């Protein structure tokens, strides 16, 4: 790296760091106000550019909307997907960023959540139909959506524990391939099992207002804004809860395990237990996201839950800045939003995505919005590596 480039980087780092420091230096109530304003803005996002209740537009802002281009996608729909992915990223961040476990099969939990609501909530699912036959229920009967939530949570938690129990003893990269296999197994099993609807998937998945129908006024098939607000609310709630974990002995234990597992064990931390918790919590969040996805889509099929999606999830976390919730949320948002906004590139989209991944990682390996700890870690590691320079 040339001296000039180094200086530039240095300066840029200061600028970024400076912003963060200035934020931290603000009085508490000002920070609260800032956060509240930010949240309000998030709720306003579906109308970006419009002033609700009027016909006025704020010029310029609608440039950001995905439907501002020809053939663009429904803006609220994109936002909804962004919110889902943010939820996923927050969950995966617990696993990767906090506990330091590389999970390449996270899509499995997303699938479990989605399938839970599909198989129990839809009248068209083989599971529900067999229950109807078994217990002589009416053809309209299915498990209510609200009941599907705990079912989905329970199933994904159990999936997390089932996956973690035998495999968490494995070292890093072994875990990666095993989790990847797990994600694939979930997908293939769903694809080949009659009770899961096979490759054709399951349709008729309910939402908060029940099975899909034209009478669903709030959470219907047509208007997506309410779905976005629902997902956003869930995201905010989860951010709150995960923050609590992060700043407790649990978060500390995760950190200690990441740094030196054996030493942590000798200091009384039970690595297995905390790793399993990380897995379970991550799984539950993934499942929740999957549930929302399935409810909104009303139809799912196994091919959706492929390895590529898993990899995209990991990329969201790493590109955003693993370990920092704001970072991973940004990563998730960008990776979901940019390809939609720049649909015009159509056939070059994947190419651009690949190039972007490489460039971001080479220029900013700590991620776009890293946690301070990660930045430092990386700098320290860099300092240690100086063999064969020149």
């Amino acid at each position, binding site marked *: 790296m040339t001296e000039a480039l180094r200086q530039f980087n240095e300066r840029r780092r200061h600028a970024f760091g400076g912003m963060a420091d200035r934020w931290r230096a603000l009085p508490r109530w000002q920070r609260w106000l800032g956060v509240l304003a930010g949240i309000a803005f998030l709720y306003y996002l579906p109308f970006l550019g419009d002033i609700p209740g009027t016909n006025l537009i704020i010029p310029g802002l609608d440039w950001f909307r995905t439907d501002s281009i020809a053939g663009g996608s429904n803006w609220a729909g994109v936002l909804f997907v962004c919110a889902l992915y943010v939820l996923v990223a927050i969950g995966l961040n617990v696993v990767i960023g906090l506990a330091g476990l590389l999970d390449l099969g996270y899509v499995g939990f997303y699938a479990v959540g989605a399938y839970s609501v599909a198989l129990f909530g839809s009248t068209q699912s083989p599971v529900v139909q067999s229950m109807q036959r078994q217990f002589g229920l009416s053809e309209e009967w299915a498990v209510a959506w609200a009941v599907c939530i705990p079912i989905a949570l329970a199933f994904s938690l159990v999936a997390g524990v089932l996956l973690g129990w035998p495999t968490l003893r494995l070292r890093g990269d072994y875990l990666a391939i095993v989790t990847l296999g797990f994600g694939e197994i979930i997908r293939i099993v769903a694809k080949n099992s009659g009770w899961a609807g096979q490759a054709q998937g399951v349709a008729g998945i309910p939402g908060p207002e029940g099975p899909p129908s034209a009478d669903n006024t709030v959470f219907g098939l047509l208007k997506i804004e309410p779905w976005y607000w629902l997902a956003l609310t869930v995201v905010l709630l989860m951010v709150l809860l995960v923050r609590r974990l992060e700043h407790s002995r649990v978060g500390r234990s995760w950190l200690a395990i990441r740094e030196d597992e054996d030493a942590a064990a000798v200091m009384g931390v039970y690595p297995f237990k905390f790793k399993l918790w990380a897995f379970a919590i991550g799984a539950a969040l993934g499942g929740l996201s999957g549930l929302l996805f399935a409810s909104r889509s009303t139809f799912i099929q196994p091919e959706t839950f492929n390895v590529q999606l898993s990899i995209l999830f990991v990329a969201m976390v790493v590109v955003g800045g693993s370990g920092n919730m704001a970072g991973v949320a940004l990563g998730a948002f960008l990776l979901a939003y940019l390809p939609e906004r720049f649909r015009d590139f159509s056939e070059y989209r994947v190419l651009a995505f690949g190039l972007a991944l490489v460039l971001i990682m080479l220029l900013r390996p700590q991620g776009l919005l890293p946690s301070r700890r990660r930045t430092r870690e990386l700098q*320290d590691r860099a300092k240690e590596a100086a*063999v*064969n320079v*020149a």
Partner: protein
Amino acid sequence: MLLEIDDLTLRYGRIEALHGISLHVEEGEVVALIGANGAGKSSTMRAISGLRPVALGSIRFNGEDITNLRADLRVRRGICQAPEGRGIFPGMTVLDNLDMGAYTRRDHAGIAADLDRVFTLFPRLAERRRQHGGTLSGGEQQMLAVGRALMSRPKLLLLDEPSMGLAPMIIQQIFDIITEINQQGTTILLVEQNAQQALSRAHRGYVLETGRIVKEGTGQDLLHDPSVKEAYLGVA
């Protein structure tokens, strides 16, 4: 002059560990480098062997400027270091570890002879020649690190705390070995906490304090210097 360091500055990120030190080692000498923890002794060694890039200043070896030479090329010029923390190859056997010491050598007969010599010096290593380096005890690893450095038959041998973690008897041996190989013609730069021993074996010594050389002199002079005595030799 075999090694000549001039105004050497070394940084770890923004921390400056060495603030322009100058020292030299003559052919055939044993030179000791002493100082408290964190004084910069190991940093000096790393700079010489090329493990750390140098910020300012120059290093000359055998008349050649090696300031920016790659580490592995310095080995070919005849500098070998037994690093702090031993640097064992954990998954290689003791024998393979020793062979690695002779990586740049081609004279098979000479290598075999040196291997024998190391095994006589450290019979424990001979016993364990098939054991993996990573499973050796701390002291055994230290012996392996020193033995491995000897295997490269360097012109200049850099030893960073060779006595660390060794039992008292072996410590004696190590210092005897240092004297012996020096007499056989190897120049040695030695970093030691055991200043007493180091200075009594060394021709000359340097005292390092927070990245600066604060004293230099013959081994005997330093050994009897009151301030050195107080700070590094302990009240006996």
